[in-house]
């Protein structure tokens, strides 16, 4: 199975996501903000990042920009957001930052699991 990195400032959400991922037999690694994520990501070398949008500290856009700079081409990112993106926005995220997919909060577990499975293929 894969290695999933969960980035969320909300501890409960992060723990919940970790539980779900572990039920799915994935290895998990947590980060509570953008800085921590960026400092760990190369060492952890995850198969998929579940990245929360709108965390205090480093802005999502900057996080994505920095990742792009690091040229971690293999890294798959999935956003976890309270905002529903439009078609256009989704397209932009995919083209610009190679975002695989996104899930909206609160999420339906079977749907989340499906999307994660799909992203890891």
């Amino acid at each position, binding site marked *: 199975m894969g290695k999933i990195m969960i980035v969320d400032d909300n501890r409960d959400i992060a723990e*919940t996501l970790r539980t779900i991922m572990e039920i799915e037999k994935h290895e998990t690694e947590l980060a509570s903000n953008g800085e921590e994520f960026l400092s760990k990501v190369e060492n952890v070398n995850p198969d998929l990042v579940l990245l929360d*949008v709108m965390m205090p500290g480093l802005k999502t856009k900057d996080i994505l920009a920095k990742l792009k700079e690091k040229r971690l081409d293999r890294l798959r990112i999935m956003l976890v957001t309270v*905002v*529903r993106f439009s078609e256009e926005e989704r397209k932009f995220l995919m083209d610009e930052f190679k975002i695989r997919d996104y899930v909206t*909060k*609160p999420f339906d*577990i079977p749907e989340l699991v499906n999307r994660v499975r799909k992203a890891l293929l």
Partner: protein
Amino acid sequence: MIKPQVLVVEDEAIVAEDIRRTLENLGYAVPSIASSGEKAIQIIEKHNPDLILMDVVLQGKMDGVETAKQISSLFNIPVIYLTAYSDKTTIERAKITDPFGYIIKPFREKELKMAIEIALFKHETQEHLKESKEWLSTTLKSISDAVVATDPEGCVKFMNPVAQSLTGWSLKEAQKMPLKDVFHVIYENTGEPVEDFVTEMDCKGAFSKENQTALIAKNKTKIPLDICSASIKDERGSIIGTVMVFRDITERKKTEDALKESEERYRRLVDFSPFGISVYSDHRIVYINLAGAKILGAVKPEELIGKNIFQIIHPEYHELVKERIRRQEQGEVAPLIEEKFQRLDGAPVDVEITSIPFIYKGKTGIYGVFQDITERKRAEEALRLKEERFRLLIENASDVITILNVDGTISYESPSVERVLGYRPEELIGRTLYEYVHPDNLADVTNTINNLVQNPGAARSAEFHCMHKDGSWRIIEFVGKSILNDTGANELIINSRDITNRKLAEERLKEANIELIRANKLKTQFLSVVSHELRTPITPMNAQLQMILAGFFGETTEKQKNSLDMILRNTKRLDRLIGDVLDISKLESGVMKFNTAKACLNEIVENAVETMRIQALDKNQELTIKEDKIPEITVDKDRITQVVVNLLNNAIKFTDAGGKIEVELSGNADHARVEVRDNGIGIKKEDQERLFTPFQQVDSSESRKYEGSGLGLAICKKIVTYHGGSIGIDSKTGRGSTFYFTIPYDYRIKEEKVDSSLFEKIMQNEA
């Protein structure tokens, strides 16, 4: 005294000499003696004697009788025969020559003298008679009147040529015929014949005008006549005939008729003229027409005839009229003037009158033409009052009324200008408007004025800064219109007001509006943050519950499961509520971002139906779709999907298990229509209206069993309206509902100024 000259014709010289001596003794002159007839004629030609003594028996070719015959035919000289013979044959012969005397030789002196004197007298008398007859005949022939005379028996005795030609009878034919047969005269009015000319005429010997007569001529033509007649009486007074003088009056009658007709025509003109026409003489009305009588309150003109004119002239005008009459009597024509009359009932009446003097029955008469101008005066007064009212209106209006010439010169300024701009009207009149216009507005004002001048009747408005007398600039708004003034020139009526304060208020309002928009944005941002913050705790709650229920953390009892289900259901509901509140607030404040692109409505509807199919299946409902192929439309695909899903969600929710839901997509010439029909509980008419307003759920205990924010349809309406379409419902309680919405094919979506950077902000952790 001249001696009468006597020619003696005697062939016996002694006898002749004896006669001469006798004649000379008697006081006659004997210029010569002729011895034969031939000689006698020669002497007569030479001496023209007054009398001839002729011997009957003469030597030569002609005897005395023959000579007398010739003399009688050649000259007009009386002849007395002298003869010794008195035989019957000679006397008979002599008689034929109509001699003046006859003396038998031998005669006495006395006898001779008597015979001569008688002959001379007789000759003279005969001459007189002849002359008189000639004169009468010439007179009768030459006069233009016709003359007919009768004898005592009433038969025609004489007709002059005019009478002959008029009647068509010659004297020869008519003579001795009864007058009635020749001179056939009838009364023109009755056609009855005139029986007796003398008795049927009046004392002056003529027919009266009413008894006009006419002659029926021989050829049956009818000729109107004027007849005079008289009886001819002898010296003893016995009637010995009748003489009639008559004349053809055809021409005169024609002239008279024409005159009568003309007079009638003019009389009618005057009688029925719409103007009052009167004639007065010696201050008395002698004529007035019907219109004049009516103006004066009379029914008939007769009521006014004979009245003193000062009875009908209003007392205020008596002096004026007296003066006018005085001048008119000197021949002046009075001009048209306004005057006041007094009606028979005493009421005053305004008139306009013109009058001219003329000779009426040998005196000065005055002919007056007048008309009632009461109505006109009233209209004039009404107009004056109206003008006064408008003047008051203008002068008391709070707006400033200005009249400008086309070059911008001020020709009128209402008093309110002083209140608005500090100038008194007289300070501005004659100056040009442009002097007071702010340089920045000058071009604009000039353009507006020129535009007004070039478009008569059209209204134009402008705003400009105008110099107040105190030196400050006031903002003036004006509306102008170009009109033709009473001299036919173009001028501009300008209505202006000071809008400085209004402008300030507008400015403040604009600022307030900006503030409001900002506040609204803040609200949206707040809602955005709130929804994030609210959703964050829901997320782990929701996920944990799902995991417990999925049995990841061990077995749960049925009761626990029910309880956890309830919690999970409510976290989901809370999440939807948050989403709806966020949507409606974004839609209402206009910050919702629509991403429009060409899309296939068939696809959108099909996908929405497929999305909702599971829910329908859960309730064992039959969900069907019927669709036409719709052309591509520019829409926000996600939002339209949201509308269809919402309608379907409602239909599934409010329809009992096993119900039927039909979706139909159709298109006409200009728009597509989506209908979602169910056979559910339906909605009361009175509740249908408020379905589309936020937080309005059909409020009854019934609806409580269906969860929902009450925002869904309000959101749908906003979305559909944004696309230029409409949304509605057709439903009856218990009979199901049909919700529909339409989307026009080519509606140009307004590019609203939305906060398009919301996404941007989210990505930057700011929203």
